[in-house]
């Protein structure tokens, strides 16, 4: 049984101890329950990617500590102590190029299963299946992962992470560069893994619609610290606070706020299209209103 994530007073300074040192995280404390779906939002440069990279030990705290899946990580932790952890945590990087390295697409996706003890043949079977799942055309399987379009690279990176069958999925803007159809398909696929296999998901995103549609928790970062740790309902119910911190609203909430301004009554602003449509259906005259004019 994989335990939850516990982060305590985490501080991180890039190039610590050099003249170029730069503080990126300040006293971050956070608990993430097993099987939950947490979205992390915040400005460019607020520290989201830095925080995520601690979750599989890519970065180690300058001070403070965290525990992920039973592994305690501090500034003293050695890399070889993290091998076990890295089997459990699947990480989709912000830039897919950063995690591609094999000669061919198929080998790249097969890397984890092979590494975890599957035979070459088995591993490539898993890889081919994953490639189809993420919508990669067969024609690219023998290509170099670096000779692909941006969206195709993204798909290879996601396939490679799914092939390792992680228990925790850490996703850093995993849909940037995907076309809208691919974006929806990937988000639905993550959701399915969350629902059916109870994967713990931590998603960094600038898409407030995705926060509204999928997450059960939201963490808001600003300037290296947490400024909110709550639910989408609560965070998005306070447009003034969001505005003050230069954060956006889901499209539905923004749209409903405009309707509210015109006098349409809402007790609480809806977060998703479906919620808004339900509400409007209640309010609309059954004839469907005037059609032209």
């Amino acid at each position, binding site marked *: 049984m994989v335990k939850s994530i516990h982060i305590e007073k985490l501080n991180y300074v890039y190039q610590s101890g050099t003249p170029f040192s730069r503080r990126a995280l300040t006293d971050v404390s956070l608990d993430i329950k097993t099987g939950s779906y947490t979205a992390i939002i915040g*400005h*460019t440069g607020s520290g*989201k990617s830095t925080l995520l990279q601690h979750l599989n030990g890519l970065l180690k705290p300058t001070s403070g500590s965290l525990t992920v899946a039973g592994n305690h990580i501090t500034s003293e932790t050695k890399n070889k102590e993290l091998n076990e952890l890295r089997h459990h945590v699947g990480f989709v990087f912000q830039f897919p190029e950063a995690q591609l390295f094999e000669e061919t697409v198929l080998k790249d996706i097969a890397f984890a299963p092979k590494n975890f003890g599957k035979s070459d043949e088995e591993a490539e079977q898993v890889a081919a299946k994953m490639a189809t799942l993420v919508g990669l055309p067969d024609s690219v399987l023998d290509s170099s992962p670096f*000779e692909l379009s941006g969206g195709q690279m993204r798909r290879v990176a996601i396939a490679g992470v799914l092939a390792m069958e992680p228990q925790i999925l850490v996703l850093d803007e995993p849909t940037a560069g995907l076309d809208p159809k691919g974006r929806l398909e990937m988000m639905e696929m993550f959701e399915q893994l969350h629902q059916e296999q109870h994967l713990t998901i931590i998603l960094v995103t600038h898409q407030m619609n995705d926060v509204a549609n999928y997450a059960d928790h939201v963490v808001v970062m600003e300037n290296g610290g947490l400024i909110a740790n709550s639910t989408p309902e609560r965070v998005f119910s306070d447009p003034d606070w969001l505005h003050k911190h230069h954060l956006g609203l889901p499209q539905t909430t923004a749209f409903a706020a405009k309707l509210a301004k015109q006098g*349409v009554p809402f007790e609480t602003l809806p977060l998703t299209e479906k919620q808004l*449509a339900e509400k409007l259906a209640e309010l*609309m005259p059954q004839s*469907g209103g005037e059609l032209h004019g």
Partner: protein
Amino acid sequence: MVVPFVYAFNILNLYFFMFRIMVLLILKTKFERERTMDGIIDIKDLCFRYSQENEKLDLSHVDLHVNEGEWLAVIGHNGSGKSTLAKAIDGLIEPESGEIFVDGQKLTEESLWNIRKKIGMVFQNPDNQFVGADVEGDVAFGLENQGIEREEMHIRVKEALQVVNMQDFAKHEPVRLSGGQKQRVAIAGVLALRPKIVIFDESTSMLDPEGRMQIISLIKQMNREEGFTVISITHDIDEASLADRVVVVDDGKIMGDSLPEELFQKGNELIDLGLDVPYPQRLKFELNKRGIQTPSEYMDEGSMVNWLSRSILKN
């Protein structure tokens, strides 16, 4: 100039701006699709493949005409050939056949350097374009290459970094920045160059919502106010909707060429083309599912809000 405008923005300017847009809109409908013989970019029957072994062409008989001062959005699903097309225009790949004219000049090995000076390209992955040791040096790099004087260079670098709000990071290494910060620096590099043609290849994909809107309005201003020709490759419907014209790339071919509002009529078909469905259309769909009839014509957000509030509040 991009920068002074930012500071000089005032009410008068706003009115003037709106007036110009109205005039432009009127002119646009009047001269819709009337094409001058030589545009700023003319592509004729262009074919390209990455490897001789590829059975299929990666760009297949592409014809494209871009008018000077136009804002062209290029859309299409992943792997359709958008970035390849941009690379061809910038002379980064060599066509198998066909011709490309930029600003009246045919793209050849000899004209390549001259043509590249007229094109500023923001690459899909900013890491692929960083050359400087620090942010400042990176933005200055292109200017140095063009032999711009030191003093002028300093001013332009400073202004460009200010416009994208990265002035505090001037001394940082470009590779040691957050994703969104990298995208901003890449954009600054092109702004400083002030090329006639700017190509943005998904340059807002990692910006926060506020930053994305800022950059989109910057593009708008560059195009509408300063007359830059803009080609924006995008999956973002907000960005595409502001363009004068949208072309759809599919399987290395240009499959469609339309005004944004024509395109948005297509509803769910848009998904197959590689764009999202506009919000009002999505909401209409959900309402129809619940037995509520909606007007059939395309409505933007404003008209949808008006229609809904009128229908609800009249009871």
